């Protein structure tokens, strides 16, 4: 009896096989060509998810595509009222360089991992993994971000809600790479809060992002770690927008009633679809979301009231 057909080296490699190929393009064009030639190649950015999967033997890719040598992916620049954020910008840089334009994403970035992880990990990586627990994802949804993906010879942009389609599933085609994220510059206060059972370096049990557009008088929420994808909470959005409208709070810059905050929290909790797992119970996730939704709204509204 033998191992898998034609295995020659005990490492799963067959006659003529090259084993794991490690591809190191230095330009985006080259990377996209390699991805077209090796659609099974797994992109490597910070490696903070991928290397763990390799260590736990959950993943045995035929090839890895190292994107860390591509300068184009590490750039960001403002254009119109957007920030074009290269997929390879680290969270450390995001916080220090772009925080003023993207405050919600910056707050979320500070909650990610440890300083060492933030030095390596990228928004592109969070998008590539598409985990419901990805801390950068709720602020992207709340801010109305669009994801730019490319393949050799073409590129396309799609809203975040069309990009993430399931737990660890996204709309990326095998020959495509995530190139950038286009995020509107904040047009009002933004907030983010995450529940974890220790005070740092923790995977979220539930998270919540909120963005106020002071110009259009719109409020957008997004819920993380409490459903198969990052969830919107349209009922909560509509409720708070109409409450603020009716009470004249936008113009008066007046406080939000506790009963309104509480109702807002309830609607956010109702918008969640959590499960019970090793990190937390369904009941706690729902309870906690109601609390952090009301708190983050309060903090953001305090900022709005304080703004001239």
């Amino acid at each position: 009896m033998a191992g898998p057909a034609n295995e020659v080296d005990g490492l799963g490699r067959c006659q003529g096989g090259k084993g794991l190929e490690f591809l190191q393009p230095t330009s985006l064009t080259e990377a996209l060509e390699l991805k077209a030639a090796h659609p099974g190649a797994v992109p490597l950015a910070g490696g903070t998810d991928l290397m763990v999967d390799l260590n736990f033997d959950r993943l045995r890719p035929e090839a890895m595509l190292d994107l860390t040598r591509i300068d184009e992916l590490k750039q960001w620049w403002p254009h119109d009222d957007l920030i074009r954020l290269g997929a390879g910008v680290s969270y450390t840089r995001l916080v220090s360089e772009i925080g003023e334009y993207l405050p919600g994403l910056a707050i979320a970035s500070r909650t990610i991992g440890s300083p060492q992880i933030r030095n390596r990990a990228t928004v592109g990586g969070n998008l590539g993994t598409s985990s419901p627990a990805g801390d950068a994802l709720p602020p992207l949804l709340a801010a109305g971000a669009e994801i730019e993906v490319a393949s050799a010879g073409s590129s396309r942009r799609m809203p975040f809600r069309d990009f993430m389609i399931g737990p660890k599933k996204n709309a990326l085609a095998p020959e495509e790479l995530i190139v950038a994220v286009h995020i509107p510059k904040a047009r009002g206060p933004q907030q983010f809060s995450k529940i974890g059972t220790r005070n740092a370096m923790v995977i979220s049990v539930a998270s919540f992002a909120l963005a106020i557009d002071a110009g259009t008088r719109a409020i957008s929420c997004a819920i993380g770690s409490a459903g198969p994808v990052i969830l919107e909470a349209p009922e909560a959005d509509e409720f708070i927008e109409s409450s603020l409208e009716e009470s004249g709070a936008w113009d008066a810059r007046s406080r939000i009633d506790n009963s309104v905050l509480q109702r807002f929290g309830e609607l956010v909790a109702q918008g969640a679809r959590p499960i019970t797992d090793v990190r937390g119970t369904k009941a706690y996730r729902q309870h906690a979301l109601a609390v952090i939704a009301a708190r983050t709204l309060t903090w953001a509204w305090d900022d709005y009231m304080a703004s001239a």
Partner: protein
Amino acid sequence: MRAPTIQKRTEQRGGVGESVQRPDGVPKTKGEFAYSSDLWAENMLWGATTRSPHPRARIVSIDTREALATPRVRTVLTHEDVPGRKSYGMEVPDQPVLAWDDVRYQGEAVALVAADHPEAARRAAGRVKIEYEVLEPLVDPETALADGAPALHPSGNVIRHIRIRHGDQEASAEVVVKGDYQVGMQDQAFLGPESGLAIPDGEGGIDLYVSTQWLHIDLDQLAASLDLPPSKVRITLAGVGGAFGAREDLSIQIHCCLLALETGRPVKMMYGREESFFGHVHRHPARLHYEHGAMRDGRLVYVKARIVLDGGAYASSSTAVCANAACFSCGPYNVPNATIDAYAVYTDNPPCGAMRGFGAVQTCFAYESQMDRLAKALDIDPVELRRLNAMDTGATMITGQEVEGPAPVAELLKRVRNAPLPPDGDAMDIRTLPGGVSNTTHGEGVKRGVGYALGFKNIGYSEGFDDFSTARVRLSVVAGEPQVEVHSAASEVGQGVVTVQMQIARTELGVQQVVVLPADTSIGSSGSSSASRQTWMTGGAVKNACEAVRARLLQRAAQRLGKRHGKLTLDGANIVSAGSGSVASISDIVGDDPIEETKEYHHRKTFPLDPRTGQGNAHVAFAFAAHRAVVDVDLDLGLVRVVEMATAQDVGKALNPQAVEGQIEGGIAQGLGLALMEEIQISQGRILNPSFTDYLIPTILDMPPVRADVLELGDPHAPYGLKGVGEPPTISSTPAIVAALRDATGRPLTRVPVRPDDIVGLDGQSG
């Protein structure tokens, strides 16, 4: 004879009582320390283990052919290839080296592979075809204890039952409080997973380099299972990345040697983090029912307790853990009447055994929770209730043993009570608030709580075990300077026993240059780096050996110098007499004829517990600590930040104050972990979180500043008066934190780790 070269009396440096820096500190910090996982030998193979995916199953057949046919694979072994004793265990040899008929927990080892490459070994291990008849696991210890439960082992399901009947069994009290408590399964979470390297000597013998806590108990078990005389098995301690009890039981030792002897080549084995969760025992989960009876003035009348420890699939050290749980079940209090039943029970859960605090942790959480509950029932301040009942020297334990030596329980409590309280949290810095950097509160919902706890535990091995350590000390002259070589088998597991041996040799022989040789089995046993005993026991052996060397040195000096100087003594590196001052240096007398002595240190005799009454002088000595926890709790989210831990502990004598501080802070971190987050979650015998992704241990933002008050009261029976330091910080820190949480929340919180749901009140618990 040459003229004496009198050396100027220099201040002795690096001796007992100084904060001598440990030699492994800087290399570990810089990532340059060689752990056992870094071992390498020319031509070595890699071993891998095939484990049962089922918590309970009968093995129908094992087919190794496909694994053997995998390229690069050199051998595949099963139980049939174990030449000697087919099972092992420190106290009860009930655990198969490789399972043959039944598997009793998820992750039990069934087959072994050695290959040229670690990946090939792992792949082949996955190709060992094992046909199982899967059985329903027995995972509830109460069910396992009940009449008619299926027997998991030929001896039945009770590993041990300790029965303590002390005083008046009919005693009645004016106020009675009852409570049920639970402790989850904690992991030792050491830094360096199990690893080692076995090298066959070509003559049927084997050399093993491995991380372990007790070389000689490994040696005994290895020799039995390999069917080799002990002289053919040599073990050397490799770089250990923490232990905390998890390295008392064997892991890779027999497996690695079997593969090396079979292939005739060096074999390395190294578990990954996930395999490590299946590769060592954990802290016993416990269910504890308590009843405390007291007079209205607060004096305790009786304690009744039923303690059930889930031992899991194999005995490990459950027998001794059970005895500790029973003996220390009432806390450091005067309890005139006690009725205690403690059980360690077999189940199909992961095996449980030694972990820092060893049975005293589980009961401390329960009895300290009870003391707070009693204080509430009596409307007495919880600190005052503890003071009123505090043990002191001369007190009688519930085992009938008199507490000799210092037992400053009330004093320790007073010191933590009087320590200044920390300032309020800074709402501008979220790192100081519950939830930390996750940005969950800017002060909303946060309430402060303060809680107290006392704990105690035995030092050293108990119940009549003749515990000893061996040390060899050699005094020679190297390049004109005296040098001391110290050799023992004591395992340096990070606690600092290498440094302590150096310090003792310097103090006893006045020689600056001390070399501690690698620990191995070419010398007699040092016993285990467990039970807070190693500084006492191996420290005692090194001291004894140094004294013997010194006596011979002075004898030789007297012979050389004649009787004209009268009585000679050692002062620094000089030999002095009362009349003549310095008369020679050590180097003069030793010359090129080194002086060497090997000595043992035995602690004073202990005795078994009476099987009917649990009475007996079972323990050598006791160590005490008090803790005060200050916590900030987010009442709405159930998140916690421990603000400060204050502790007072009697260490007898701090041989190395910096190391004592390290033990206190590290022990508190582990106690905090148990209070708030550390739990191996099990469902139907399966571990749900075998990784540091989901088994959370405290980070630097969870661990608060520690205010430590170290007392040195001196134990008359111990070398230098020292007491063990390692375990007391872990024991009472957990209940102190939970008491502080109760103070803030008003909820009963009867289970650790405390979950956010418990604090918020989502699980039906109410204030």
